[in-house]
């Protein structure tokens, strides 16, 4: 892992909303082909970090670099074209479009910029990849929650991103769906995808992440392997409070 190049790096990343500092001087990096988990109690700034990386928000201070290029001053669509794709905490499918068109959206405008049949074929292969091949003609609104999440994942993958951001992609799934979901992300990781995921499901963190960073009140509390950080006493205190 250590020989791989650094793909994503945040330097003194800070975001404040008025008086509230949601992310405070965060430094971390993600190497190519690495799966990094961001964990922490509610309100610790995890989603804000993803929003800053994907360009939904601009940092107040600090910068973010993707493959050595600064992206934190760019708008979201530039960042997406440079190869950052994401899913959303509250699943966001495009309700007026077919399942296939939802995925094509990623293929047409993402890093690949495919069009017509190329985009269609790419979308179909990704639908198969996430296990939706027999649901491609259904209206998106009729899909179950996990299937909508699959659509979102396929859309994010369709742009062939350099880095994939998953914001609680596994939240709200039932136990058997959770196993399917973990296996799916595992297979993406084995494919060599670089993934940053925000997650509360500790099983998923343990089985998927090479490395974890723990946030608390917008600051980096700990980082290291999932086992190491989850047994860190500061982390346990942050989650459970002091007794």
């Amino acid at each position, binding site marked *: 892992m250590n020989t791989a190049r650094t793909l994503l790096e945040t330097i003194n990343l800070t975001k404040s909303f008025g008086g509230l500092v949601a992310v405070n001087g965060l430094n971390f990096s993600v190497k190519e082909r690495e799966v990094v988990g961001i964990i922490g109690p509610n309100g610790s700034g995890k989603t804000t970090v993803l929003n800053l990386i994907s360009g939904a928000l601009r940092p107040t201070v600090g910068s973010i670099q993707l493959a050595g290029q600064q992206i934190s001053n760019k708008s979201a669509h530039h960042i997406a074209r440079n190869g950052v794709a994401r899913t959303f905490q509250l699943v966001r499918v*495009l309700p007026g479009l077919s399942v296939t068109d939802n995925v094509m959206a990623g293929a047409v*405008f993402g890093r690949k910029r495919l069009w017509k049949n190329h985009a269609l074929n790419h979308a179909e292969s990704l639908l198969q990849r996430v296990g939706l091949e027999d649901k491609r003609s259904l209206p998106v609104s009729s899909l179950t929650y996990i299937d909508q999440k699959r659509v979102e994942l396929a859309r994010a993958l369709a742009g062939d991103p350099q880095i994939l951001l998953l914001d609680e992609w596994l939240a709200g799934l039932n136990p058997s769906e959770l196993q399917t979901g973990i296996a799916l992300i595992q297979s993406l990781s084995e494919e060599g995808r670089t993934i940053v995921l925000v997650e509360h499901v500790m099983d998923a963190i343990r089985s998927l992440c090479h490395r974890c960073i723990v946030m608390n009140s917008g600051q980096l509390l700990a980082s290291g392997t999932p086992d190491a950080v989850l047994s860190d006493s500061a982390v346990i205190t942050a989650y459970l409070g002091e007794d």
Partner: protein
Amino acid sequence: MNAASVKNLSIAIVCIVLAALIPFVFNGYWLSIALTAMMYIALSTSWALFSGPTHYISLASGAFFGIGGYLVATGMSDYNLSFWLMMAIAAVVATVLAALIGMATLRLSGVYFVIFTLGLAEMIRNLVSWVQNNFLGSRGLYVLTDFTEAHIYWMLLTVSVIVFALGWVISQSRLGFAMRIIGNDETVARHVGINTAKAKVLLFMTTGFFAAIVGAIIAPRYSYIEPNLVFSPELSFLVVIMALLGGMHRLWGPLLGVIPFTLIWEAISIWLPNFTTLFLGLTFLIIVYFLPNGVVGLLEKLRARVAT
């Protein structure tokens, strides 16, 4: 080209030929109604190119239309310039103005955008009126050309055909796909890599361009023009109502709103001239309560029911 598109193209050509023949069959009163309908077909269809996919309701049509009519009138009346030159200038001015409005309103959505466009159109109307009254002496302008109603009608038909052709090209393009995604979820659109600002402004400029062209073509029909006539807020509302009545999710939707609406509007103007505003309100209620997707939506629903 597959069978379906050959069929659609054939239907389109037949409709265009039939529409082009109207001045040979009708004259006087009915031609004048057809002309009004053709004007609204061009305006509503081009308006829906932007507002259909994005659901941004613009009430600025009157401003762009007014720029077309007013510049043609000023140029011809005060400076002896040709109709065609003034039409081209008006189109450029309106397109640039649309770009500016588009960029200024990018962050506005929903009702804020509606109010902004309405306010802006009113501001332009008052500004032009004020300049005209205080600095340019006369209040009205004369547009004297050799155009007959038939000529004006054919020009508007040409514009409508171009709007439809452009609409079809856009629907087949990346821009069209981008607009559908923006209409569904703008945040997702940005995050899949769509320059939403550029796409929206481009389409808004298109509607400004066509509204100005239509305003310019219509100017000779009025012969006498003053700012309050061409910068009419009523026109902005009519364009919206007709497009909504027809349905905006199909390119030919507004067409099915314009034709019945224009006919009823004309009938009411003759028999119950004081009730046109009431009719406008009633139509709006009908759209909201019974035709959320317009006449097209109703037809599609009926067709689906017959099919099953």
